Every structure is written in structure tokens, then in C-alpha cells.
């Protein structure tokens, strides 16, 4: 079984993230890491590979060349190879453009199963998988808290606002996993050492049948117009309990006329 996992490199959390007021795009010049939620998807792929046997896990991403460093984490965990669609023209791709690029690369690979993580920590988007599934005309199941594969089907325990659904889809299928699905492994030292020698390919747009018009700002249908300060939430107070915290909370609630 060939399992593709779509991942993204995002700016490191905790580091001061900023939007560049010139380009109105996220400043990605600092350290990048593999999007935390995508690591759950990689882990799930590896578990399936281990239980199914005779499987291949391919990491697919769209990003600048430097993103290969982050993809290597997935290889260090045990993924077999990585494909990075990398082209200057693709900078600033929105959902429409990104899904187009990923779908084109995935089509070449014809995976049996395509996994996504729950959302990206930079744009807080939780929508990409549905757009990719649509472009590939494949069944989609999202918010997977449990996933089993067998007899050519994926069976998912899906988390919704109302409880859990059980949904089944024939392969090939697209499944987006929630971070409740697993605890990802840490790469072993052997894995980290071996990652560099696993195949990592850079794909240019024309290799996946696309041109500059299909991606980046040219290929996007949304735009950022301006950046503003958010409405002030008001001051945020922090106290450490020295035995009087409960009283301080009460005073605060009285002050705010909540009691």
C-alpha cells in the first residue's frame, strides 16, 4: 500500500511570528519546523505501514527548498521518501493554488491513502484536505480519531461536535487525522542518521503539469488587504498563588461585576 502524507513546514511556535507588512505574508525567514499536527499524520502512516507490511510512506509538501530540513524529520521517523514541490512562483499560494499543486503531485504518485494533519499552526486552516480530495475526486473523511485499513477500505472513527461517527470509504481515499489519533514517536538516532540518505526529490511546477499562473499570488483567489491591531482585549493579569489567589479571583469577579 502506498500512503502519501501531506505536510507543511511552519515557523517555529514560540518564536515571535510576524506578518511582513510589505508583502502581507507570514515572515518565514526564521527556523521552520514540521507542522505539529502533520506529525500525527506521519505517525499514523507509519503505524499502518507497520501493521500492513509491504507499504511505502511518501511525504509530500509545497514550500521553499529549505523546507527539506523539516521534511527530514518525517524521514527520520521512518517515512520512505519525500517530495517537495518547490518553485519561486508558488510563494503566497492560497487554498485554491496550494490544493492544485498538491493534487497534481499526488496524482503522479497514485497513492492508496492520502493523509493530512488536523490544521496548520500558521494559518490555522483546517480545510486543505477537502480541497485536495475534491480535485482528485476521491472520498474524504476528516477528524479521524481512529483509523483502520483493510479489505481495500478505510474505516474511521470521526470526531464531530455531537460525538463520534463511524465512517467507511473505499481506497483510494483522503483522510485527515485529528491529533487525538496517536502519540507520535520520536525519531531514533538511527532514523536521524539514515534520513539524509532517503530519497528527497524537488519537483518543479512543469514536472507536475503546472505553470506559474496556477500557483502563488497569480493562482490564488484570495488576498490580504491590510493588517490591523486587534480590538484590545483589555489588560491581562497574571498572579501566582501565595495562598490568597482565591480571594484575588473573587475581588476580580466583583470588580468585573460578574458576582
Amino acid at each position: 500500500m502506498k500512503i502519501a502524507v501531506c505536510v507543511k513546514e511552519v515557523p517555529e511556535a514560540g518564536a515571535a511570528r510576524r506578518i511582513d507588512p510589505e508583502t502581507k505574508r507570514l515572515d518565514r525567514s526564521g527556523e521552520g519546523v514540521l507542522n505539529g499536527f502533520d506529525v500525527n499524520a506521519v505517525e499514523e502512516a507509519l503505524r499502518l505501514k507497520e501493521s500492513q507490511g509491504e507499504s511505502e510512506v511518501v511525504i509530500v509538501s509545497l514550500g521553499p527548498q529549505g523546507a527539506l530540513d523539516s521534511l527530514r524529520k518525517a524521514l527520520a521517523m521512518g517515512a520512505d521518501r519525500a517530495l517537495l514541490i518547490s518553485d519561486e512562483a508558488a510563494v503566497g499560494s492560497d487554498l485554491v493554488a496550494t490544493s492544485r499543486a498538491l493534487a497534481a503531485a499526488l496524482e503522479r504518485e497514485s497513492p492508496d491513502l492520502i493523509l493530512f494533519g488536523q490544521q496548520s499552526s500558521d494559518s490555522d486552516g483546517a480545510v486543505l484536505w477537502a480541497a485536495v480530495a475534491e480535485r482528485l475526486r476521491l472520498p474524504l473523511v476528516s477528524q479521524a480519531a481512529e483509523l483502520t485499513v483493510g479489505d481495500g477500505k478505510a474505516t474511521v472513527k470521526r470526531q464531530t461536535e455531537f460525538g463520534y461517527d463511524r465512517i467507511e470509504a473505499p481506497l483510494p481515499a483522503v483522510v485527515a487525522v485529528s491529533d487525538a489519533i496517536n502519540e507520535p514517536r520520536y525519531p531514533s538516532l538511527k532514523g536521524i542518521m539514515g534520513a539524509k540518505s532517503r530519497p528527497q526529490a524537488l519537483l518543479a511546477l512543469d514536472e507536475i503539469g503546472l505553470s506559474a499562473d496556477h500557483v502563488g499570488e497569480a493562482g490564488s483567489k484570495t488576498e490580504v488587504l491590510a493588517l490591523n491591531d486587534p480590538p484590545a482585549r483589555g489588560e491581562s493579569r497574571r498572579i501566582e498563588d501565595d495562598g490568597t489567589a482565591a480571594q484575588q479571583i473573587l475581588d476580580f469577579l466583583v470588580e468585573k461585576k460578574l458576582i
Partner: protein
Amino acid sequence: MPTLVFLEHHGGELQKGALGVLAKAASLGEADGVIAGTGVGALAVQARGARKVWVADDASLEAPLPQPRVDVLAKVVAEGAYDTVLFAASVLAADVAAGLAARLDAGLNWDLVDLELRDGTLVGTRPALGDSVNVEVGWKGDPKIALIRSGTFEPATEGGEPEVGNVEVALEDFSTKAKMLEQAHEERSGPSIEDADVVVAGGRGLGGPENFALVEDLAKALGGAVAATRAVVDAGWYPYSAQVGQTGRTVSPKLYVACGISGAIQHKVGMQGANVIVAINKDANAPIFEFSDLGVVGDLHQVVPKLAELVRARKGGG
């Protein structure tokens, strides 16, 4: 700006969030709604503010799965020449909106907290980078698709009955491949936490299910409802119906007291609309302290019972 609003429904009622988006859309111009499901014709009358409601009623739409709804909406958008399609954010709506965006190669902006028309152009506002900046976003071309953050707009309180039109349902082969084997059925016990003015929530920091007694005690003292994070519901410490977060309820009470909750994004999205947030956690680095109004670094097992006692004394004593 003829706008179409996706009217999600559950348990025989149109979702409040969707009705809020409909009211907003109606304030900006003509707004129609679309309802997809089985035996849903009777729900159209609930769509206050809609000029017209399209009803796609078919056995194939019984399960709340996204892909058949993409087919329905694509058809309604094309035939009705809508240039804007709005969704109230939910697990289902996100999948439908994004599938529709790919189907129509249309721009999708999500997590919007406001929408306005500036010189006839639609502009959305969304928070970004942990709510530290507000971004104004726009669309290139039509239709313009948007996911509105849950609970942003209030439903209309008045409005006549909308005209109803029926949609002939024709689905793509791939849209019906995913099958619902067993649908979630929520166990509703007690009043809905979504209507509570005060919510006291417990997370993993409680240490064990027995400590929900502390949360319940404080909730009772404050006259509020009890909520729980996904982590503790998954662990079986509290029922699903109390879950607040991305895959649970969204609440916007006057006061939200978070006990032993780290404040991960899936929880945050369910309660960030609260007026006042008080967080108690022994970890000074918990993300919740970034968006709480009063953050208390301390042992909740000490602070919470003491607070409940003080609240009772204050209320009793006057």
C-alpha cells in the same frame, strides 16, 4: 451581492451559528439559504432573514457528510448565479466550503469575525497569529466563499417566511463513496452549556475524574454550567455533551473559568468568545495564559474549593 448561506441543521433545528450568518448576510443585501438533508423541508420556515430557501431533500443526503453537499451547493450556486457563499464554521461546514472552493476554483477565507461591504466590495476580517493581529482579507473573482467563526453573529429575531424552492439532487460518483456506518448521537443531559452565562471547565490538570467534583462545586456556587476539554472526555472523565472546543460546543459566556486546562487551539476555538476568562493552572507556560483576562499560576486543588467557599460566602452574606 446575491448571497447563499449554507444552513446546517441538527436534531430538527437549523444551527444557531448558521442563522447568525444568514442574518448578517441579509443585512448586507439579498440572502438566500440552502438546506440539505432528508425530510428537511419543514426547516425552511426557521430561516428568518432569508428571501428564499433552497431545499435539497433526498435519501442520499441523510448522513451529514460533506461531499454530497458540495454537489448540491455547486448546482445551486451556478443556477442561482450567486456571487457569495457563506458558512458558519463547523466540522462539516469546513469540509463543504473547501470542497466547493476547489470545485469552483473560488477563493475561500476562513475564521472570519466580521464581514463588510466597502464600496460594493466584500471585505472580511480575521484574527491571525494567536489573535495578535487582525487581517483584512478579500477575494479575487467570484464566487466569494467564507467560513465565519462560530457564534460571531446573532440570528434575526424577526422576518417573514422565506419562499421555498426545491433542488433536484444529482451527485457525483465519488461523492457517495464515503458511507456513514454509525452516526454520532449526542446524549443531552441537563440545560445546554451554550446558553449559560457562566461556565466552569475542567481539563487534564484536574488529575482525575473524581476532581470534577471541584469544578461542579464551583459551577454551582457561581450558578453556571460545567464544561470539559476533549482530552478528559476522551479519557472518560466527563460526558461528551460537556465538551467545549473544535469538536465540541462553542460557548461565549460572560465568565469562563478554566481549571487545569492548557489552552490548546482546539479548546480555545470553543471558548475564545467568552467575555472574561479566568484560568487556573500550575504551569506558568500554559498557552491559556496568553488569552486569559486573569491568569492564576497555582494549584487548582487549593484555589478552586477556596474560591467556591468565598463565592458562597459573598452571595450568602450579600
